[in-house]
């Protein structure tokens, strides 16, 4: 929390400067524009809360905005309730609408989500027209106007809008720095990986749309008071949703500053153009607006904020580069190059995973047929087989990404078949992916921390778990690097650390050695071995046998979805069936 407050210092400077400037503005129309900048910035932050962080683009934020606006005006007209009371109520309405809209709509992804969000404000627009509200105005109050949030001095509204923006910035900042924001960003970058890391993605998305809806509802409520007259079109219209999207995209998605920068630039430009040129060039502001956005999408597709930040970081990066090179040069000699001999190990008698008769078919293709096996605690089990043998399918059945047609998966005696990936993750089954799924814009540290939230009760504990996981895989030195910039080996290790941060009992590794050179793969093998020694049970799929022979305690060989052989490495590699499966009948005769 303290850190959140500290990070707000630039905002406080901005707020003080902006309000100081506002105090010099006497023209009531410019006062209105100064207030509108803050209103749309806040609305942009509302959009950001959902779409910026989760990546689920909403074209329908006008729903929450409009409900807040209409609720506030209708409550004053019919019930005489003050907007001071209705502002938080409107936030509640926005949150509720968010959950109601989110529940059905989160079943969709990508463009389908964006388009279906478009439907809600359009529906509401017609409902309010049909209810007989072609327009409705805030009743003028002469006695005790302040109680109804009515002020003849326009600058009061600017101050109020700044307070509202400040609260929303605070909320956003807090969300960004806790597991809430981390989970959302993880969802945005890779929803499957997020599930595998133990994140209940639907629950977090619903929380996000509720907070986003609440902010939009409150902004809509304030907007109605400010603008006096609202129509269904002016609060539920396409342009309102677009406004949120435009200011956020222009300024920078998924940052507190983006919508503020966007609104501060676009709103005055549009208003001035309309005021100065609108009477003889009607619609000119739309043209200029459009051109600005086209130019921006070409030059800075993620928004001004990120463009500037990336630019600054690149300059900083250039200065920092030499030391990084030195470090890696210094580290090289100590890296082990020769393969370490596999020491014989005593295995525990305890069975942690028991798979019984598990099967999965895709139409006529039997990908996995009646496979049964069991795994002792602390064992490294290798699942091998030629391409198409059913290895990955078996894996996905074990960790919940696919549902088996029949059979059981018992973890410590509990049947976990048909559970969601994040539930399995919580039950102690972690995994990595064959095709790596890093959260590219996040640092290595944050990538791992996302996994740590599964069992961590507090931020401090998550931090502690993250550090330990990074140390286990030897990534502590590059923990602050952005995941998009590190080597394949480090990415593999990072994924391993993320899975470890979930503190699994059983770790499923999907072709963790794929694409690595022999030295690199030896590093990874060493890490895996170290993990097994600490008592973790590891199941690893691999396509090639070489590195595996030195690593695993037992092999499980699949071919055409069937378990053909199971046993210790030396036994398995000389087995005829295995040689036949890999090399064909001709070779098995020579074996």
């Amino acid at each position, binding site marked *: 929390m303290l850190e959140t407050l500290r990070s707000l210092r630039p905002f406080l400077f901005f707020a003080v400067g902006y309000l100081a400037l506002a105090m010099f503005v006497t023209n009531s129309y410019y006062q209105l524009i100064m207030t509108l900048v803050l209103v749309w910035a806040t609305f942009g932050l509302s959009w950001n809360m959902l779409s910026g962080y989760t990546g689920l683009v909403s074209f329908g934020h006008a729903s929450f905005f409009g409900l807040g606006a209409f609720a506030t005006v209708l409550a004053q007209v019919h019930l005489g309730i003050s907007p001071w009371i209705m502002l938080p109520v409107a936030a509640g309405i926005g949150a509720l609408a968010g959950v109601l809209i989110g529940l059905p709509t989160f079943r969709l992804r990508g463009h389908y989500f964006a388009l279906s969000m478009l439907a809600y404000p359009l529906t509401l627009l017609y409902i309010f027209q049909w209810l007989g509200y072609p327009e409705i105005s805030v009743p003028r109050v002469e006695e005790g106007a302040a109680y109804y949030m009515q002020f003849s001095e326009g600058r009061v509204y600017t101050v109020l809008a700044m307070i509202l923006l400040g609260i929303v910035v605070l909320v956003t900042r807090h969300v960004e720095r806790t597991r809430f924001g981390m989970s959302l960003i993880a969802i945005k970058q890779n929803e499957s990986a997020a599930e595998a890391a133990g994140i209940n993605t639907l629950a977090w998305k619903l929380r996000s749309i509720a907070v986003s809806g609440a902010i939009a509802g409150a902004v809509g409520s304030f907007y109605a008071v400010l603008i006096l007259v609202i129509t269904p079109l002016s609060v539920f219209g396409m342009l309102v949703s677009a406004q949120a999207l435009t200011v956020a995209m222009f300024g920078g998605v998924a940052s507190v500053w983006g919508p503020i920068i966007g609104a501060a630039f676009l709103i005055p430009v549009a208003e001035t153009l309309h005021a100065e040129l609108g009477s003889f060039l*009607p619609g000119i502001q739309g043209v200029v607006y459009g051109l600005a956005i086209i130019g921006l999408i070409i030059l800075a597709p993620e928004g001004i904020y990120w463009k500037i930040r990336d630019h600054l970081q690149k300059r900083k990066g250039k200065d920092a580069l030499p030391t990084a090179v030195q470090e890696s040069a210094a580290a090289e000699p100590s890296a082990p190059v020769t393969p370490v001999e596999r020491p014989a190990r005593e295995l525990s008698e305890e069975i942690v995973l028991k798979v019984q008769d598990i099967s999965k078919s895709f139409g006529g293709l039997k990908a996995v047929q009646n496979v049964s096996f069991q795994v002792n605690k602390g064992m490294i089990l290798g699942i091998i087989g030629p391409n198409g043998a059913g290895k990955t399918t078996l894996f996905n059945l074990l960790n919940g990404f696919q549902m088996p047609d029949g059979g059981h998966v018992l973890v410590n005696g509990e049947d976990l078949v048909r559970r969601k990936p994040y539930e399995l993750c919580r039950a102690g089954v972690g995994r990595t992916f064959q095709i790596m799924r890093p959260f590219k814009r996040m640092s290595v540290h944050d990538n791992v921390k996302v996994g740590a939230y599964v069992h961590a009760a507090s931020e401090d504990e998550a931090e502690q778990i993250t550090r330990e996981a990074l140390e286990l895989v030897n990534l502590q030195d590059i923990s602050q690097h952005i995941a998009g910039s590190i080597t394949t080996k480090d990415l593999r290790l990072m994924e391993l650390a993320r899975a470890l941060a979930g503190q699994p009992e059983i770790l499923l590794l999907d072709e963790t050695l794929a694409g690595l050179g022999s030295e690199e793969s030896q590093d990874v093998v060493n890490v895996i071995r170290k993990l097994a020694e600490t008592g973790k049970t590891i199941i690893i799929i691999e396509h090639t046998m070489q590195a595996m022979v030195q690593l695993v305690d037992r092999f499980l060989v699949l071919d055409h979805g069937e378990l053909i052989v199971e046993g210790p490495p030396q036994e398995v590699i000389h087995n005829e069936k295995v040689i036949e499966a890999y090399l064909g009948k001709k070779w098995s005769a020579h074996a």
Partner: protein
Amino acid sequence: MKSFKTLLVGGTALAVAAAAVPFAATAQDNGDPEPVQIGLIAPLSGNYARPGEVMLMGAEMGIEDVNAAGGISCLDGAPLELVEIDSGDTVEKATNAAKRMVADYPDLVGATGSYLSSFTLAVTEVTERANLPVLTLSYSDLITERGFDNVFQTAASAGAQAEIALPIIMDLAEDQTGERPETVAIITDDTAASISSVDRMKDGLLEDVGLELVSEEIFTPPLTDATSLVQRIRTSEPDLLFFLPTVISDANLILEKMQEFRVDVPTISFGIAIAEPEVLNTMEPELLEGVLSAVANWGVKGQEELIERLREEYGEPWMTQNAISTYGDMWLFKDALEDACARDREAVGEALRNLEGGPAEYYPGGTRSFDEQGRREGASLTIIQWQDGVPVTVFPEDLAISEAKWPTD
């Protein structure tokens, strides 16, 4: 080097400008009195730009005539000066425009506007808070039901218009066809004025004149397809059709569809959308022949000279409410300024509230004074009819240019 030059030029220009300001001020002190600013806040762009332009013509003619008659004599013959503000074509643009008008023109003493009742409602929410008196030709009842002090409605309110018009229409039908119509269908858009009229009709007025409502169709302008609307009217087989469009293109679309589907119901319109000259761009005059419309104001007997000037100066074939009412507003402002004898919006507002009676010259019926609500006292309406390709005034009789005929084949 270049920037230094720019600075130098800029600096010189500033200095010259600064020096010139006192001169300009003294020049006015010695010569003609400074003009008094009146605002016209009306749609000059978008869907409703056309009626807004006609209002501008009326305002310009009014200002020309007031100034030619010596300006405001109480203020040393100060002339009126028109300030145009585009209210755009949506309620939110109108609100914004009003805020801009109030902020940018602190010297305005009054304004007139804003065609559509919905815009006027929005604009006056802003002007009332700035104490700026506004005359309006919009006639939704809501405009003068909010307890505002500075809004003055020169037209009879929509409810009042319906009350006046319906009995006249029924009598006309009986007089010319021998029987009174018994059923009516209504097609209306959902703008404030239309809704006010329809509400009043359904609130007892139809019953009073013995009409049964058999179908009611409400749409939001602009309409894209009128087929289903017209189909439903056709199946309800009414004796009469009341038609309340606000946008010209909506009026055209519906009338064309009626012709296409051969719906021959005598049509009575409310409002001027079906009597704008543009209607003839897309419709044959025969199609319109006989269509009646109840309008708040129209060029009438005795204004032939004005109508002729409008035709010559602006090419307008006839004088609609937008031109004549806005023209009259300039004279009302002159009267108020003479009474107030001050360039002060609050004094002008006070003067408008207390204007001496006397028959209204540029509005049908009643006087030039306003009641406590801000409605013109005794305001009546005009009924117009398309006859030989021109909408002419047929009621009230003393102002009528031609005689009404019942619209039958």
